Each structure stands twice: as C-alpha cells, then as structure tokens.
C-alpha cells in the first residue's frame, strides 16, 4: 500500500513534468511544419529601372507595323512565290490566286479578236468593191447613160460600206479592250508586296482558299531589322504619360536583360484592351492608352515579332 501510494505520488509528478516537456516538443514540431514566411520568388523579378515609373505590358511589332496582306477577292491560291523570312521589295509578287476562269475568258476574247479582224477585211473588200463600182459610173461622162437614181444608190452603198468598216474597226478595239481588261484582272490576282520588308508570317499554301476576312491575313509583312514595342497602359495611369519619356523593356520569362527603348509616339485613340494572353481575345477588360517605342534589334538574345514584354516607363510620381 505504501509502495502504491509512493508510486502514485512520484509517478504523477513525473508524468506532469513529462507533459510540460511533451508540449514543448509539440510546439517545436508545429513550428517545423509551418510554411516559411514570404521571401523572394524563385526567379527574381526585374528591378525597376526608375524611382517612379508606370508599368505596362507590351508586344513587339515590326517597326513599320505589321502589314496583314489581304486579297482582292476570295479564291484558291495557285502559287506562293515567297517563304517565311524572305525579304521582299515593293512590287515583288507574293502569291497568286487561281485565274483559270479568266484565262478561259481570255481565249474566247482572243478568238473574238480574230473574228473582228476578218470582219474588217470583209468590210474593206466590200468598200473597195463599192468604191470601184462608183468610180466606174463616175467615169461615164454622158449623163444620159446612167439614171440619177442608180448613181445615188452607188454612192450610198459606198457610205454604208464605210460605216460598216468603221463599225468592224470599233468591234476590234472593243475586243482588244476586253482582252486588256482580262489581263489586268489576271494581273490583279497576283498579290504583290505593298512595301519593302520581310515575310514574318505565312498562313497560306498553294491549294488553300484565301478569304477576304481581315481576321486571318494570308501573310504578314514587316520590316524586322528594327522593332517597335506597342505598350498598353491602363487608362488610370494615362495621365502620367508624356511624350519622350524614357523606358526599358524586359522579355517575359527572362528578367535578366533589359532593353532600352526610344519613344516614337503616343497613339491618340484609347482603345479597349485586348488581352495579350492568347485565347482570351474577347475578354475586353478596360481601355488602354497605347504608346509606341522603337527598339534596336540586339545581336543576342534573338527577338521575335509578337513577343510579350514588360515595360517600365519613367514617369513623375502621382503626387
């Protein structure tokens, strides 16, 4: 009994002490399980180049802006003369639409040209015949030998033949004109470069159907030696933007290199923002002011038209 009560006495005391130790252990384990406090992200974001700046997102474009080549009429593409990255001069052919229907018309028009030509020959022969007849009658000096009526008829025959000849000639001219217009229409189906530049996107191949919709251009042409950045600035920050402000751009995904930018212009029209993240074209969030900066193309890293960039534009503090 004495032993039991002793055991209880010291046992409970020891257990109580153990409890205090255990709770400290729990508190330790718990601290280990806690998530560490916030630090820097795994890839350190770009350092702001200015003390006060407006941030924006932008997209790289060719300096001359990207020209989306359209077609005069929808049709099948029969031949493409250029490849992606080809540099083209103004007027160089880019691709050709199917022109077989016009070629067929050309053949029949050409045949009409021959018809018109032979018609002229017939009419010329006729005129010569009538003229000769008239000349023969004219040569008779005795006026009693020929009736006045006959004489008049011969004269009119010549005039009619002359008019018919003129008509046949006009027919030839018309046939020639329609031939010319057909070749112009054929020429129109060859799409030519509207300016010097490079082919930066090719969406069409021979055999495909080219539509006139402006949403899907057949190819995009641009001058990629110099690039420009189109920066979207939230309209709430628009008041801080002035012409000539300095700016730096950082490529999305690579924050280690910054690109100095040169101001070109502020677009005077504020447009609804079209999200640059890809599939969400219809998600129009807010209106943005667009500012254009030019960018010297560096040797390294390679830059591509259409890449997204983060921009910092030096701007006065809001206050």
């Amino acid at each position, binding site marked *: 009994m004495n032993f039991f009560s002793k055991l209880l006495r010291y046992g*409970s005391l020891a257990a109580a002490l153990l409890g205090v130790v255990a709770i400290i252990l729990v508190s330790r384990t718990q601290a280990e399980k806690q998530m560490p406090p916030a630090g820097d992200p795994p890839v350190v974001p*770009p350092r702001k180049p200015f003390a006060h700046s407006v941030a924006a997102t932008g997209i790289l474009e060719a300096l001359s802006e990207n020209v989306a080549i359209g077609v005069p009429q929808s049709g099948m593409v029969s031949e493409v003369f250029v490849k992606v990255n080809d540099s083209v001069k103004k007027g160089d052919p880019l691709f050709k639409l199917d022109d077989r229907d016009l070629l067929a018309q050309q053949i029949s028009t050409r045949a009409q040209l021959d018809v018109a030509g032979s018609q002229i020959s017939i009419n010329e022969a006729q005129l010569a015949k009538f003229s000769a007849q008239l000349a023969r009658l004219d040569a008779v000096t005795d006026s009693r030998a020929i009736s006045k009526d006959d004489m008049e008829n011969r004269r009119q025959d010549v005039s009619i033949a002359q008019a018919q000849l003129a008509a046949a000639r006009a027919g030839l001219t018309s046939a020639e004109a329609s031939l010319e217009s057909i070749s112009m229409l054929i020429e129109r189906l060859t799409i030519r470069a509207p300016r010097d530049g490079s082919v930066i996107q090719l969406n069409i191949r021979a055999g495909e159907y080219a539509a006139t919709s402006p949403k899907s251009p057949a190819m995009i042409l641009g001058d990629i030696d110099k690039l420009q950045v189109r920066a979207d600035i939230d309209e709430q920050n628009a008041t801080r933007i002035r012409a000539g402000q300095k700016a730096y751009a950082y490529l999305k995904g690579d924050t280690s290199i910054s690109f100095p930018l040169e101001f070109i212009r502020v677009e005077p029209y504020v447009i609804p923002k079209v999200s640059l993240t890809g599939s*969400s074209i219809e998600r129009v969030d807010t209106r943005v002011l667009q500012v254009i900066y030019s960018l010297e193309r560096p040797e390294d890293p390679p830059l591509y038209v259409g890449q997204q960039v983060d921009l910092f534009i030096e701007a006065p503090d809001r206050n």
Partner: protein
Amino acid sequence: MFSLALKMLFGDTAKYLMLVAGLFFATFLIVQQASVFCGLMRWTTATLKNVAAPIYVVEEQVEQVNETNPMRDTDVARVRSVSAVRWAMPLYSGIQRVRLADGSFKTVQLVGIDAASLAGAPQRMVEGNLKDLRLPNTVVIDELAIERLSVDFKDPAKRIKIGDSFEINDIEARVVGICQAMRSFTGGPYIWTTYERALQYTPPQRKMLSAVIAAPGKGMTMDQAAAAIEKETGLRAYVNRDFGKNERDVTTGKTTRYGDFNTATVWWYVKNTGIPISFGTTVVIGFIVGVAIACQTFYAFVLDNLKHLGALKAMGMSNFRLSLMLIFQAFTVGIIGFGLGLLASAAFAMGALKNGQPPLYMPWQIPVAAFAVIQVICMLAALMGIIRLSLYEPAMVFRA
C-alpha cells in the same frame, strides 16, 4: 510545514486522484479544444501561408482570402506602377473540379502564378522541379492531393505520381511536382499552375484576376508599401504577416478595417460562422467541470482533514500559515493536474500533426492561459477550504 501539507495531500490517495483527474480533464479540454479551434481558424488562411507573398492586393471590398472579387488584368500594371512596390505579379486562386481517370470528381484549390518569376510558388518541393511548371499543361500538386487524387490511395502502385495526369474542366493537367502545403479550410488539395493556364482551366469570365501579390521596395516596410498601394490605386492592400494586431487596423464603430489579411480572414470566420460558439462552449464546459470537481473534492478533502488542521490550529498555528498550507496543496494539485492534461494534449497534438487531421495549432498562449485558468480553479477551491477552516474553532477538536 510544506512537507506536512504534502503528506496530508498524498495521504488520501483516492481524493488526491479525484482532484488531479478533475484538473486533468479541465486542462485537456481547454488546451485541446482551443488548439483545434486555432487550427481550424488557421486553415482558413491556408492560401496566405501556401502562396507566401508579403502583400496581397485585392479588390476594394474583399474581406477575406477565400472570397475574392476578381479584378482587371491591367491592375497588375497599376500596382507595379506604384513606386513603393518592388515587384507585383498576378495570382489566380479558386476552387475547381478535377476529374480522375476513373471518372470521379474531386474539388481542388487551383492556384495560378506568374510563369516568369514563379512568384507564389510552393516553398517546399518534395519531388520534381518547380521550373517544369513552364511546360505545357503541367501542374504541381501537394501531398494531400496524392491522397485525394489517387485512384486507389491504399495501393502504393496506384498512387498519383510525377508524370500522371488528370483533367481540370476537361483540360489535361500533367503532374510535374509534388510539394508540401498547408491544408485548406475547404478540404481540397492545393494545385499550382501558371496564371495563363489557370485561366484556361477556369470557365471564362469577364474578369479573372483574383489578387495581385507584391513586395515592398527597398527600405520600406510591408505596411508602408501597402498604404502606398491603397492610396495610389484605390485597391485594397493587405499585408501577409500573421494573425495579430497591425498598425493599419482602423476601428470605426462596430467594424474594424484590418491591415493584415490573416487577421481579416480569421475575424471574418469568427463573425460569420458558428465555429467560435461551438468551440467556446466546450472550453467553458471544461472550465465548469474543472471548477465543480476541484472545488467539491478539495472541500471534502479539507473537511476530512479538518481534525488535523484543527489540531494544528489548537497547537497555535496561525490562520495565515494554515491558509498558506492549503494554498500550497491546491497549487501542487493544480500543477500535477495541469501537467497530466498537457501530456494528454501533447499526445493528441502529435497524432494530429502527423496526420494533418484534425486541424491543430497551438500558440504558446494556450498552455499559458490554461495554466492560469487551472490555478484560478485551484485557488477558488483553496478559498472555500480556507473559509471553512477559519470558521472552525480549535476547541472543537477536543470536544469530539
């Protein structure tokens, strides 16, 4: 004198055990229930712990992290334009449904982070490489997801692992990493992906940016930067420190505008759910049980020993010294009961921490407060004994 007191205390084993048991239960109930309550409240801020960022910028009316009002995409640039901000990145956070290979559905907490900087990425990777998140259709899952998203969790061969895939809203998601994360209040595992992809996984809405996470500039505290963001953008900027007082807390009338997102979230749940009432009731019952058992037993104990105490009194011991003896006895019983209660709570806590279930978080204040409460109970019991003793005439000893 104190050894005499102890002898008296341990003399009656049954009463001693009874006393200790009462205090033990009181301690256990108070500590365990309060810890589970704190743990549950902490779960509500799991996103803030898992997506560790110094500052959360959200829409003006947002009161807690699990209920955000989406903002415009350009708001990232607006926050970035604030001079006090070092960096600012977009964040998507929302509950989505996952379809497993066998066709069953599970809800998950989808987190979309900036692909370039990976700001807000899980901090403790267990397996896999975080940067693989930049590959197409990839996600990083947490350890809870292994349990939830595996076809058969019990069979180790059928557990979800790196390279496996499932579907989020009919779009493929391939696992490239497994990380440690805190559990969420809603019970769904955390799944990280890039911001752009999170938008593709989510049914389209007009606005989808849940929050902007940001860091203060050099030489700035979080609070200064948050104040600057609020001033310049009109958005709501919370700091993400921990539950507690913040220098930017403003109380107007009955409502308080909190500066810390953790505090704001916890208070939101306290005010808008019945959780604190239910846990509070248990804690109060623990206190009442402790008081009832301890006071009653101690009083009976004093009554039992009244003869001896009376004899001591008759021998000339002052009331004060006798009271001191009783207080010492109560104090000893209190410490032992408290220690045993802590032992049981610790056993429970270890199990909970190992399992991750039930929620448990024990700040140091809980045992300290429990100790104070137990001592109050003991002193109350001692007080009753003292009153009884002081009314006792020493002569009564000899009368019997």
